[in-house]
């Protein structure tokens, strides 16, 4: 318990939240990630895939838009292109983002560098933050690199800047949560392989499993409720459905776009019940963003706690 007073002066404690350029893990990860051909190969492959897909979509949509009315509905082409690019971006982000982080901490264990780091003055928060943000920065690069492709849609019209910005917010928030989930499992697993499996299982659950499961349950109840000619159960059902949509990035993006197109509003929209009453609801991207950010913070905190833990 005796702490020599002379030593205390030397060990001036620097705050935990240092600027990013001062986070050794962040700098190290970025150096490693951008070194050699790998980062550029991934980026090229991603853009090539996205470009090829956009081209195919254009061919398909241009053909059908022409043929239906005899005159081309250019706005429709633009919108479809935009939606498809965002959809494929979402798929890629959902699967690339965790790939960067699922090995973040477990690989330090595998390389036996984890113990070295724990005997330094590097705090667990800086450690996890450096890992997460360096992965996020690369995801951001992928998203920004796709902006020119997205803006092809502007040629055709039918897409507003708001849509672009909101889709970007939804994509980033999705990447953030999935990356953090990857970090979380990485902090618990001893091997990168098991961390990856657990991460992808949860990501698949978030994107596909959860909506299917709850959707099924709601549909079953929904039929019985529709028979009752009262507004209260209908409202309750709407809220439940809304809540489910807000847990899923794809559903959120689609509904948000629908609201934007049909009501030209960002924050709230109105829904007319079968009884003629109108109900004001919040556009799903807001609760979605809040929910994903809260979950991100929770998983981040859990990961930090696990890293901080000393073996017994």
């Amino acid at each position: 318990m005796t702490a020599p007073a002379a030593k205390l002066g030397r060990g001036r404690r620097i705050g935990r939240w240092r600027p990013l350029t001062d986070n050794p893990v962040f700098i190290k990860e970025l150096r490693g990630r951008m070194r050699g051909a790998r980062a550029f190969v991934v980026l090229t492959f991603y853009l090539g895939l996205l470009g090829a897909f956009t081209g195919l979509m254009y061919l398909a949509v241009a053909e059908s838009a022409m043929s239906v009315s005899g005159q081309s509905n250019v706005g429709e082409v633009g919108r479809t292109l935009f939606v498809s690019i965002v959809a494929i971006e979402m798929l890629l982000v959902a699967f690339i983002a965790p790939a960067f982080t699922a090995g973040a901490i477990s690989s330090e264990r595998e390389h036996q560098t984890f113990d070295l780091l724990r005997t330094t003055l590097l705090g667990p928060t800086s450690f996890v933050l450096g890992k997460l943000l360096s992965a996020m920065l690369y995801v951001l690069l992928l998203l920004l690199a796709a902006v020119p492709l997205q803006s092809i849609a502007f040629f055709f019209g039918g897409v507003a800047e708001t849509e672009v910005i909101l889709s970007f917010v939804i994509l980033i928030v999705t990447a953030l949560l999935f990356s953090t989930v990857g970090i979380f499992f990485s902090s618990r697993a001893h091997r990168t392989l098991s961390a990856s499996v657990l991460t992808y299982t949860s990501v698949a659950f978030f994107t596909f499993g959860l909506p299917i499961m709850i959707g099924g349950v709601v549909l079953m109840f929904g039929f019985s409720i529709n028979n009752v000619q009262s507004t209260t159960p209908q409202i309750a059902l709407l809220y439940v459905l809304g809540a489910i949509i807000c847990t899923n990035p794809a559903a959120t993006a689609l509904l948000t776009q629908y609201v934007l197109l049909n009501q030209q509003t960002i924050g709230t929209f109105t829904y007319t019940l079968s009884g003629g009453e109108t109900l004001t609801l919040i556009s799903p991207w807001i609760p979605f963003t809040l929910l994903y950010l809260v979950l991100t913070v929770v998983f981040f905190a859990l990961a930090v706690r696990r890293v901080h833990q000393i073996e017994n």
Partner: protein
Amino acid sequence: MAEELIIETHGLVKRYGKLVAVNNLSLKVPRGAIYGFVGPNGAGKTTTMRILTTLITPTAGDAYVAGYSVVDYPREVRRAIGYMPDFFGVYDDMKVWEYLDFFAACYEIPERERPGLINDLLALVDLTHRRDDMVEKLSRGMKQRLSLARTLAHDPDVLILDEPASGLDPRARIEIRELLVEMARMGKTIFFSSHILADVAEICTHLGIIESGEIVAQGTVTDIRRQLMPAREILITLLDQVDAAKAALAQIAGVTGVHDMSDAHGRRRIRVDFTGDDEGVSQLLQTLSARGIPVVNFAEETHDLETVFMRATKGIVS
């Protein structure tokens, strides 16, 4: 004046379920010492070091490094130590200078001070010419030297090195040994483990011998030699008159025992346990000559630390 202890443990215990890895261990490492922590594999050396480096918590007992409790002040302890585990932590894609830069940054050394520091460290471990090479391309000996440089990044008081010379070729082994001596000259206390006594014997000022999680002997090298080998052993080969020789020797002051040895090449041999100094030893020979006892060979059995070690550790572990 009592020596200042830079590493001190009292009744340290570490249990893993039923297995007792470290049992009632009390270490005393004085400041400035080169302390060799020796014991067979599985004796508890690594466990002790992991407690001292705040990686694991002890089940019972106290451990202090540079005056700070490892349990209560882990951050202060980390600042005071440089730790090298018994494996080399490699990052795949990192250059030699980046490796040192990364760890220096982890020790909160300001960015503007790092380039100079890295150059100094590389010069110390003679790796300046490999500055821009990838870490994974280095030989084992070079990696070990780079590891040592890393432990010095934040100018710690104590270096805790787990088997620094294991798995190295003889040349690399000598280089590491010289580096340890150099670091001691820089004023660092060096606490290092080894299961090979030859590595330790030449450079240590202090020794701690551990077996089955317990300290068997501890102190300066000369102390330990005296403690474990209280008597010098002198082997005498005789032509005949063995009994007369034994009787004569037994009367000399300082002789604690005279034993028959197995015959060598048909000659009778005896072993004399003797606690006197060099003059006393020559007196023994003179006594025999004076009595007309024919001596064929008279030699002191020199015991290196290896023998001391074999005596201290009775092979319980291995």
